[in-house]
């Protein structure tokens, strides 16, 4: 996990540099300070399982096998990106590796993941789905409909509610009057627990349990991971609404990577050298990845027309482009 934590944080740092150079074309979203829960929860899945990440779940996608160069290409809208420049950032899928790209309207992925898990159940496949939702996204109607549907159909789905204190500038207390987001599970008659989201081992263990239960036919469950969004909503956000000392407090005393490093060292599971080696490996891989794609071309305009439909795959639609003269 240390490798993936480092990879996530470093890749986001590279993206910030590219953003400052104007190479990242749209917005840039960071998971600084909450990478732990992404990485640890995804780590609890097996091959064949599918997760649906949000914008801050870069770590989850990397664990599933998404390659840094794909992420870089997506952010830079390269023709070589998984969506050939049509979609942004983490919005792409690979069902073989086990992830489904999100769309922006929050909450919508929960019903979709419920349906993916319904197919697992109907077919009797021992596969599990995992879906993330923020403290903000949990206010959407689709969250409610999706979790309720999953719960009543008892499909093998794990819902991770990321309680990171903020939804853009809105603190959780203005989003919902529940203090514990795990209590939302009670509305659906499913197990709901709260874990320390910056304790990667705790998140891993809790997800592992929920995934095992789902795989054994135990249906849907919900895990609230408590963490903190240390950067703004997106790179352009100056975060002035977030108390500075609150950010500093989390950074200084409750960073998921720092805490994991302390555990690794404390338990003697890894040495400083091991970790340096991992860091170097990450650095080298990212150097290669950036170099590999930085000069890739953007897609050509006319490529925008295909694949609106399976059939007809492409249609001549705009008369005015072909007018003579």
């Amino acid at each position, binding site marked *: 996990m240390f490798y993936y934590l480092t990879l996530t944080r470093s890749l986001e740092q590279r993206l910030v540099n590219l953003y400052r150079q104007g190479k990242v074309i749209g917005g840039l979203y960071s998971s600084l300070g909450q990478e732990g829960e992404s990485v640890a929860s995804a780590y609890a899945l097996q091959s064949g399982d599918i997760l649906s990440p949000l914008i801050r779940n870069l770590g989850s996608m990397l664990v599933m096998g998404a390659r840094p160069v794909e992420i870089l290409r997506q952010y830079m809208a390269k023709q070589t990106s998984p969506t050939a420049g049509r979609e942004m950032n983490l919005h792409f899928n690979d069902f073989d590796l086990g992830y489904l790209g999100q769309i922006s309207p929050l909450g919508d992925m929960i019903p979709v993941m419920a349906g993916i898990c319904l*197919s697992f159940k109907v077919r009797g496949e021992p596969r599990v789905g995992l879906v993330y939702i923020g403290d903000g996204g949990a206010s959407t109607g689709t969250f409610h409909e999706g979790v309720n549907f999953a719960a009543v159909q008892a499909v093998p789905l794990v819902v991770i509610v990321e309680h990171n204190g903020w939804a853009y500038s809105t603190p959780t207390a203005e989003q919902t009057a529940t203090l514990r987001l795990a209590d939302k599970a009670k509305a659906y008659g499913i197990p709901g627990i709260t874990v320390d989201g910056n304790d990667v081992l705790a998140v891993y263990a809790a997800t592992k349990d929920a995934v095992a239960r789902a795989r054994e036919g135990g249906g849907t469950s919900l895990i609230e991971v408590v963490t903190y969004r240390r950067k703004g909503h997106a790179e352009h956000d100056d975060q002035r609404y977030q108390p500075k000392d609150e950010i500093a407090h989390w950074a200084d005393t409750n960073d998921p990577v720092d805490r994991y490093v302390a555990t690794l060292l404390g338990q003697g599971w890894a040495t400083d050298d091991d970790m340096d080696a991992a860091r170097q490996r990450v650095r080298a891989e990212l150097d290669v990845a950036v170099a590999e794609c930085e000069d890739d071309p953007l897609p050509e305009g006319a490529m925008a027309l295909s694949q609106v439909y399976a059939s007809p795959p492409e249609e001549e639609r705009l008369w005015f482009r072909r007018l003579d003269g």
Partner: protein
Amino acid sequence: MAEVTYLEALRQGLFEEMERDKEVLILGQDVGKYGGAFKVTEGFQERFGEARVIDTPISEAAIVGAAAGAAHMGMRPVVEMQFMDFISCAYDMLTNYVATARYRAGLSTPIVVRGPSGGYVRGGPFHSQNPEAAFFHTPGLKLVCPATARDAKGLIKAAIRDDDPVIYFEHKYLYRRIKEDLPEGDEILTPIGQARVANEGTDLTIVTWSAMVWKALESAEIIEKEDGASVEVLDLRTLLPMDDEAIIASVRKTNKVLIVHEDTRTGGVAGEIAARINEKAFEWLDGPIMRVTAHDTPVPYAPPLEDFVLPQTEDVVKSARWLLAY
């Protein structure tokens, strides 16, 4: 041959596809034990089991979203809206998630969303809608609107086999009012995207679909009898994709067009059809393209109000005569 209603033809089509392909699932409110509010899936759960015929909570967005997810995994879910009016609750899911899935992320989403639409049944504002225009504007969706029993069967089967998401608008007024002899042995499949000439004619074209096909045919008969003019009735069958060629061919023949739809006028599908004819056959027009549609109001409940708001045969006849005389 056996005489079947529109509803029975639809039921048969669904049933045959469930038999043919075990990936076909049915999801919706009260579709299982009850067989659906209009009994379209009566007996399905007994035959195919609870795993394939699923009674869902009252959660239109979740039902459509779940169907999409299962479709990504290779299944072919058919979603019933209890009334098409409630499809508006899944508007975001259909337009933002489902319709864009292939384009933005290469995802295959072969779902069918079907249900009863349309008025003339004293259903009031929330059980009489024709929400086709709301989705007509969304690239990535296909829209079908059968008018006949044969097409009710042929189009549901084609919709289920189609690799794109299809919204299938049944007309509840036709459910038990339209009957047709259908062959029992052969398979009926109506290709998506092909219009049908419901009546051949030379003096005027009426472009229409769904229940309005019958009002157009009635009008054509009246005009033939009383005015001696010959009216072509084109049943579009599919709104997305639209059979422009069939429309243009008919316009080139008759040179006058009346578009008739049950839905309200402003922003209705007729506008697009008028624009396309104008663009592609302007020089062939011997009169303005006319529209007969519902008034721009919700569908009211009281019979005289509903009858006033929705288009009637006499409205079609009147406009057709005006155009013929132009």
